[in-house]
């Protein structure tokens, strides 16, 4: 999705932003739209029994796509949580493989995280943040100018791991971006009862690193802030904290009921700040994008959504024996024995049942 295609060339007639080419504007929009539609379809697939559960990201498309597209997916490396569909879209991750995690095929997903430069989906809140720090140190030791980005939420900011990671990054001046999506809620806890002091970005100063708080629903603001942080990282300037203020419009997950902890009015007020609608409006009025662009983007997104749904619906779950195969590089004898016993007992019960 990050590369240009026919539609992007069509869109090149519109004007660019002072610092962002029109083609990038087009790609940002297309990724956001695809993320939105795929996200909605994942919710639908959960309702239809195709996915056992899903964590919707509606409302966070600007934060995710804007930051993901500011990276060089061939050089940098992203460490997602469980809600980073938009980043996956922006970085060109195989979306069927991505969705396979929610479909229950494999923890972490079935895409190739090494090739995608997008770590396996990680469900431990705060847990992957120190990994980004280690990856950044490895990049520094390799004398590359690659950088790592850790995605985490307002809830995750409370975790000890995040503090330790920021401190390490500050001490070693590592090329890493701490990208916090402050989406207002950690399940039922509002961020004002989560983040003492009120701002994750403000914590950066305590580690001697820059921290910026941005409108996370303004994709260009997100893109610029991330691009600047990447630049800082590449040029040896060390880590940055970005706090993108946004909102989780949907439930925490498909088994959550936000009606128990927040008002419809609040949700409504954020729907009015919808990042996709806002960006579309700017593309039309400020940058002169034509209707045909939006039509084509919608059609292209629908093709991907439909293809993803078809593939996910018919996804061949890896054979059961694979649950034994990736635990070690070379499984110890005792584990091979367990695999064989499992195989035998499976056959037995097939015979019996």
């Amino acid at each position, binding site marked *: 999705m990050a590369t240009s295609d026919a539609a992007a060339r069509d869109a090149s007639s519109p004007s660019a932003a002072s610092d962002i080419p029109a083609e990038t504007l087009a790609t940002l929009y297309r990724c956001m739209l695809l993320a939105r539609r795929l996200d909605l379809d994942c919710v639908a697939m959960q309702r239809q029994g195709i996915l*056992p*559960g899903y964590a919707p990201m509606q409302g966070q498309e600007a934060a995710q796509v804007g930051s993901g597209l500011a990276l060089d997916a061939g050089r940098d490396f992203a460490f997602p949580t*469980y809600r980073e569909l938009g980043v996956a879209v922006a970085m060109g991750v195989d979306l069927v493989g991505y969705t396979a*995690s*929610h*479909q*229950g*095929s*494999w*923890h*972490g997903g079935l895409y190739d995280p090494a090739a995608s430069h997008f770590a396996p989906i990680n*469900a*431990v*809140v*705060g847990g992957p943040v120190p990994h980004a720090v280690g990856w950044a140190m490895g990049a520094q030791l390799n004398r590359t100018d690659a950088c790592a980005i850790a995605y985490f939420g307002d*809830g*995750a900011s*409370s*975790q*000890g*791991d995040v503090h330790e990671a920021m401190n390490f990054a500050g001490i070693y001046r590592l090329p890493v971006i701490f990208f916090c999506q402050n989406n207002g809620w*950690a*399940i*039922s*806890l509002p961020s004002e*009862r*989560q*983040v*003492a002091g009120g701002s994750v970005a403000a914590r950066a100063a305590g580690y001697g690193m820059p921290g910026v708080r941005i409108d996370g629903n303004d994709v260009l603001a997100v893109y610029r802030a991330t691009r600047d942080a990447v630049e800082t990282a590449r040029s040896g300037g060390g880590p940055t904290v970005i706090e993108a203020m946004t909102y989780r419009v949907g439930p925490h997950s498909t*088994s*959550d009921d936000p009606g*128990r*902890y927040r008002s419809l009015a609040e949700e409504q007020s954020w729907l009015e700040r919808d990042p996709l609608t806002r960006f579309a409006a700017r593309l039309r009025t400020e940058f002169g994008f034509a209707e045909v662009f939006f039509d084509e983007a919608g059609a292209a997104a629908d093709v991907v959504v439909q293809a993803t749904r078809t593939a996910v619906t018919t996804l061949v*779950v*890896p054979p*059961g024996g694979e*649950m*034994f195969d990736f*635990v070690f590089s070379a499984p110890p004898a*005792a*584990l091979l024995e*367990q*695999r064989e016993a*499992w195989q035998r*007992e*499976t056959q*037995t*019960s097939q015979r*019996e*049942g």
Partner: protein
Amino acid sequence: MTNPTQTQPQPQTQPDETQQTLTQPSRRLLSMQGALNLALDHALAADERTLIFGEDVGTLGGVFRVTDGLQQKYGPQRVFDTPLAEAAIMGMAVGLAMQGWKPIPELQFDGFSYPAVDQIVNQVARMRNRSRGAFSMPITLRLPSFGGIRAPEHHGESLEALFAHVPGLKVVSPSTPAEGYRLLRQAVADPDPVIFMEPKSRYWYKGAVDSADAEPALPVGTSRIVRRGSHVTLIAWGAMVARCLKAAQLGAEDGVEIEVIDLRWLKPIDAEGIAESVSRTKRAVVVHEAPLTAGLGAEVSALVSERCFGDLRAPVGRVTGYDIPYPSQAFEDAYLPSVDRILNAVQRVLEYRRG
């Protein structure tokens, strides 16, 4: 020299209460989730020093609704949400206990108790000992546990072996709503830290609960025979108890009389109770969801061997999860001990011939 583990509390058994009728006014049909909620409600009412806190336990009532309605009823001072930090939740519990409060923290899922392991092992479990009894730690950690609910990674873990190995902790897991009510009241009343492992996959199963049963009858560390049998003893806890009962039913159809023990307390373990059963049946199989190696089944196996050596006709069987990370949804049924695997193991111990 007597083996140091040879004397333990006497086993006491009682009929499976799910088979009793709902005659008394205090008896009602509740899900495990409802029974635990009722136990917490009564615990909060009974002792104003009890406090409930954790992630999403207040306004939301917990992701499994076990604390549903309690904040409304007892106020946001006694039932409150915390920021998202498991170590601090348990560390705060220690400080509250030192002030004379009785904390009932919740950690949202088994797999997210690992960040709190340092506070649990190095602080909760030891503060009483370190202070020579000056500070008791009457903390009940509620931990939604085990697998079977088609959840993502880290939501299907079995940590009983880890916690049972830690001196200073008691560990318990209920298998039915009645047990849930009774054991949770007992855990909260206990002056020492108790890890209360709630079998998630049983939250919505219903059974009769007697809420007048506030004074727990069975002492800490006693197991329960939930089905009598003479050919082999199955030992299990949490959700595996129901599965063993299913296996026993099927076994009976084939003429195999399987005794089923609900171990309940995973520390201290009712070694005497297990031994009493195995000395009658001469054969035992332990069943758990956790991986095989160094699982609590090893301890049960060792205890049975130590106490029933002369009686045993076959080595103690172990039907467990495999030595792999708890797998994703698609593999869950393949991973968890199935009725088939349990019956296969029963068959193995019955057919065992000394080699």
